[in-house]
């Protein structure tokens, strides 16, 4: 029996570059305890757990197994989902499916990562084809740089346009006590920071982070008893493209376009720019803040730089993007997509404190993975029909 699904509680760690004071299960536990407290539930109330990370970052597989003391999974059904960069968003979609199926009433969703425990670029490389991809590959940044080059050549955008997005997200992070990087940057600082891979400067790209996030989902039978104003999950979509890195269309994120079209058509959103109130985007580098809002259909191809420069995506603008500070300010990779989901839920629930956007009716959160995948969730204040 299909059920409508709502988020009734969220919890996050205070994300940092290094957390040597906690091991994996301890950092997971911090997020879980905060989510349980937020929903005013006990671990005995939870029927099942969905957990994940990119396990090659720590080189420790089976997080579903070894984390149970921290996750609360002792003698509960636990399932692991790991889909690269999209892991956190795929966890949210998986939890939504489990509750939506009617088989579980209350599901705890957990994403986490301790990027400090290995070399991030080395670990990411192991996710790519050893025969065809790895010879020239340089971690996430090389493909992103190629995307930015493709976009700039096609639409005449500049590195200043990209830098403007970094300035926005880093400013927004000042309002979020959970963000790792809480120091504003200027356009000049972004452009003067070391060039990592043309056209990406150091301050255009996300950091490495240790952190965890937990979200509690509940079926319509109990959601409003747990939380008077829950965040209803209206629709989810996921698209996977690419076999080898050379197969992608560099300059357009086709998976984002397809996810957005599917969700907006099904829900009847005709003008996403006006009907959506806030976006939490898995935007690992600044240029994605231009390219991907075009693919999402917020503005037309090549229009994003003007839209961003006019302040439309800043706090107080027409459609604020990443009030949390986004991924440029904080990136515990396996948690990152779930943090977007949790932040969007907090916006809908009115719990986003200093980073709250007023009167949020619809919010969008996304996940992104290095193989040009997109996950997307539409969150809403009203119960879906």
């Amino acid at each position, binding site marked *: 029996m299909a059920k409508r699904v709502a988020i009734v509680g969220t919890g996050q760690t205070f994300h940092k570059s290094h957390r040597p004071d906690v091991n994996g299960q301890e950092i997971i536990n911090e997020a879980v305890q905060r989510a349980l407290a937020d929903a005013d539930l006990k671990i005995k109330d939870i029927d099942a757990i969905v957990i994940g990370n990119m396990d090659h970052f720590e080189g420790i597989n089976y997080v579903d197994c070894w984390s149970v003391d921290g996750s609360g999974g002792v003698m509960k059904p636990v399932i692991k989902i790991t889909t690269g960069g999209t892991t956190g968003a795929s966890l949210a979609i998986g939890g939504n499916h489990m509750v939506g199926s009617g088989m579980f009433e209350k599901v705890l969703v957990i994403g986490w990562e301790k990027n400090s425990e290995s070399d991030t670029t080395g670990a990411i490389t192991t996710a790519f084809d050893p025969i065809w991809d790895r010879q020239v590959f340089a971690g996430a940044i090389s493909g992103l740089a*190629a995307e930015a080059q493709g976009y700039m050549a096609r639409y005449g955008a500049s590195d200043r346009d990209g830098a403007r997005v970094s300035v926005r997200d880093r400013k927004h992070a000042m309002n979020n006590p959970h963000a790792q990087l809480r120091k504003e940057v200027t356009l000049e600082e972004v452009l003067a920071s070391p060039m990592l891979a043309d056209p990406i400067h150091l301050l255009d790209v996300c950091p490495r982070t240790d952190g965890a996030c937990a979200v509690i989902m509940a079926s319509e039978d109990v959601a409003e008893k747990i939380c008077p104003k829950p965040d209803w999950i209206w629709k989810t979509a996921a698209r996977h493209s690419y076999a080898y890195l050379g197969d992608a269309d560099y300059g357009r994120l086709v998976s984002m376009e397809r996810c957005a079209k599917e969700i907006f058509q099904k829900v009847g959103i005709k003008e996403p720019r006006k009907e959506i109130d806030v976006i939490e985007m898995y935007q690992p580098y600044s240029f994605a803040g231009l390219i991907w809002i075009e693919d999402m259909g917020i503005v037309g191809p090549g229009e994003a730089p003007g839209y961003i420069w006019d302040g439309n995506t800043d706090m107080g603008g027409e459609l604020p993007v990443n009030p949390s500070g986004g991924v440029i300010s904080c990136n515990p990779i396996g948690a990152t997509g779930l943090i977007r989901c949790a932040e969007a839920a907090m916006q809908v629930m009115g719990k986003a404190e200093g980073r709250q956007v007023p009167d949020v009716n619809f919010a969008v959160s996304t996940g992104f993975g290095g193989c040009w995948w997109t996950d997307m969730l539409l969150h809403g204040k009203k119960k879906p029909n």
Partner: protein
Amino acid sequence: MADKDQLIIESGEAAQPFKYAVGMPGSKFFAETRDNKRLMGEKCPKCGRVYVPPRGICGKCYVKMDEWVEVGPLGVIGTFTILRFAFIDPETGHQKPVPYGYGFIKLDGADTLYQHYINIEDESKIKIGARVEPVWAENRKGTTRDIEYFRVID
């Protein structure tokens, strides 16, 4: 937390070698680069797309491919970056020499991009759309390194 040395334990120098199967289409591709300095792609019988690297199945149409077509060896830069930050190459365990040109090459006759090094002696020539040719290795063993790099010929 009196003794911070106890907070982290290193995994040490252990290595774990892997053996990867290339598959039949890839093996044929590498035999051609090694023996004939030719680049070959596979063509989908349904949509007509030509794939390099070859992979036996067109994922979009989900049909088997068995038609081989020669592509390149010339092409254009589809997109690129110049890697400038130093990082440990997990394939070798050593720091990758930087800077280097990372090209996504659109070989003539192919519909996908082939990843390889681009010579960046003259950075001003490295642009999307620039015409490139492969520089073949003297000693070819049937790997992606049968081509040393691509260079701009405009």
